[in-house]
């Protein structure tokens, strides 16, 4: 578990984060979502001491990170950022092996593990000897994820990792993250400004306003069903047409067409015999929740 207690961070005269407290449960995905200025990246970087709080504490499993040497701390926490931040002068396989090599794992062993990780993130091994500049943006991000996983960290920090890749590749990468998280049970703290991405990935979603003020936290279902205030309602889009769906009269057969408030068809829903089946919708079935992104405005 990661715990922020009354954390404040100032840069000069301005507050980046003010009196922020949050518990991040282990072995789950927690998404910090907010627009720029919400301090989400600053908060993320406090976990691996890229940023030290001006006051307050950040603890990992009860241990104050301020008491841990930053370099050692960072080597046991995976980190993925938006521009993949790969080392342009190192081949893919050596980029992935970065942290194990830093901690003294033998080159051959680290490289063998790196090749395995390429399988894990869905990157063909034929790319192993390429340089990052020879890969597409999506491929670079896969390398970035593999690199972050290489030391087998308990915690993975992801700072808008898929913000710069195209929507189709992004959807693919998001599924990879969910799959990898399910397999490794890593604690993931994910920062994004994209509410759809937050709802797709997050077991817990924390909506931040200016200076790290938590406006609402909870499961995607809780937030969507009961937005705390107008800000959240507007942020998640439930005040606009996007998420308020109605059954179109034009549906036929056993499926009914769903339209948004603007009248655009966004999907179909099973309605055997023309009747909607109410009930056992599993809140964990995430596979459809990203389909609301059709307008591409998120």
């Amino acid at each position, binding site marked *: 578990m990661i715990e922020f207690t009354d954390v404040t961070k100032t840069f000069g005269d301005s507050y980046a984060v003010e009196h922020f407290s949050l518990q991040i449960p282990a072995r789950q995905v927690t998404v910090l979502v907010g627009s720029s200025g919400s301090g989400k990246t600053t908060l993320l970087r406090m976990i*691996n001491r*890229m940023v030290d709080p001006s006051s307050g504490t950040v603890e990992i499993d009860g241990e104050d990170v301020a008491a841990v040497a930053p*370099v*050692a701390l*960072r*080597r046991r926490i995976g*980190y993925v*950022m938006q*521009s*993949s*931040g*790969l*080392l*342009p*002068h*190192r081949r893919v396989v050596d980029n992935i092996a*970065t*942290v194990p090599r*830093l*901690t003294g794992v033998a080159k051959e062993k680290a490289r063998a593990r790196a090749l395995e990780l390429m399988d894990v993130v869905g990157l063909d091994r034929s790319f192993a000897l390429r*340089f990052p*500049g*020879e*890969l*597409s943006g999506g491929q670079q991000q896969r390398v970035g994820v593999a*690199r972050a996983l290489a030391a087998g960290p308990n915690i993975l920090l992801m700072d808008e990792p898929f913000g710069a890749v195209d929507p189709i590749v992004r959807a693919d990468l998001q599924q990879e993250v969910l799959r990898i998280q399910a397999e490794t049970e890593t604690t993931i703290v994910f920062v994004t400004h994209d509410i759809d991405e937050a709802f797709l990935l997050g077991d817990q979603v924390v909506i931040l306003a200016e200076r790290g003020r938590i406006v609402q936290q909870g499961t995607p279902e809780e937030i969507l069903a009961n937005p705390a205030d107008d800000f959240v309602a507007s942020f998640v889009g439930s005040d606009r047409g996007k998420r308020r769906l109605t059954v179109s009269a034009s549906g036929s057969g056993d499926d009914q067409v769903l339209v948004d408030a603007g009248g655009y068809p966004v999907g179909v829903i099973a309605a055997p015999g023309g009747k909607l089946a109410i009930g056992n919708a599993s809140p964990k079935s995430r596979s459809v929740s990203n389909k609301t992104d059709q307008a591409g405005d998120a």
Partner: protein
Amino acid sequence: MTWLWNNLDLVLGLTAEHARLSALPILVGFAASLPLGWVAVRVPWLRGILLTVFNLIYTIPALALFVVLPGILGTKILDELNVVVALSLYATAMMLRGTVDGFASVSGDVLQSATAQGYSGTSRFWKVQLPLAGPVLLANLRVVSVSTVSLLSVAALIGSGGLGRLFTEGYNRPFIDEIVIGIVFTVLLALLFDAILVILGRLLMPWSRRRPASPRASFLRSILPGRVA
């Protein structure tokens, strides 16, 4: 040309001396500019001071420096150490701005990401920042190399200076062929140094030349097989 064949040993000997006396300052200038450039990048207020000081050094005429240095270093006026020190100062001065630019050219994202992976400050410098500054360092070093090779000729006026002696001698006799031979061999030497640097760069930085083909280039290649390399 007959003069060249008759004096080949002399010309080759002077070329070797020229190579030695110019290679040394190039290496010293490169090595000295690294810590200076590193400091200049790390300490903003020192950056301006360092760059100004070395710009000023660069404006001192070479001949004046050759004459002044023996007094400072305690060497004899004809000692070739004077030449090496003077050219090293020029090389450092020329190289320093390039080194600063080189270190500054490394993407902040890459540096931050290296820190986030757990590089310590020093290992980040040696394993990330320095190699990534490489292409800019190399570009500047090539300029320093060529200009040091050509500047060394001036030292002929104080007794060393390698191929420069063909200029002073050819001028005094006067014998134009000797001067032309001097120029040709100076140029050849500069080209040789440059080729060595380029090859070193390719060996040490194989990553810097590989870039994915631009969509336009790929497209052209696909419709013009064999025409666009």
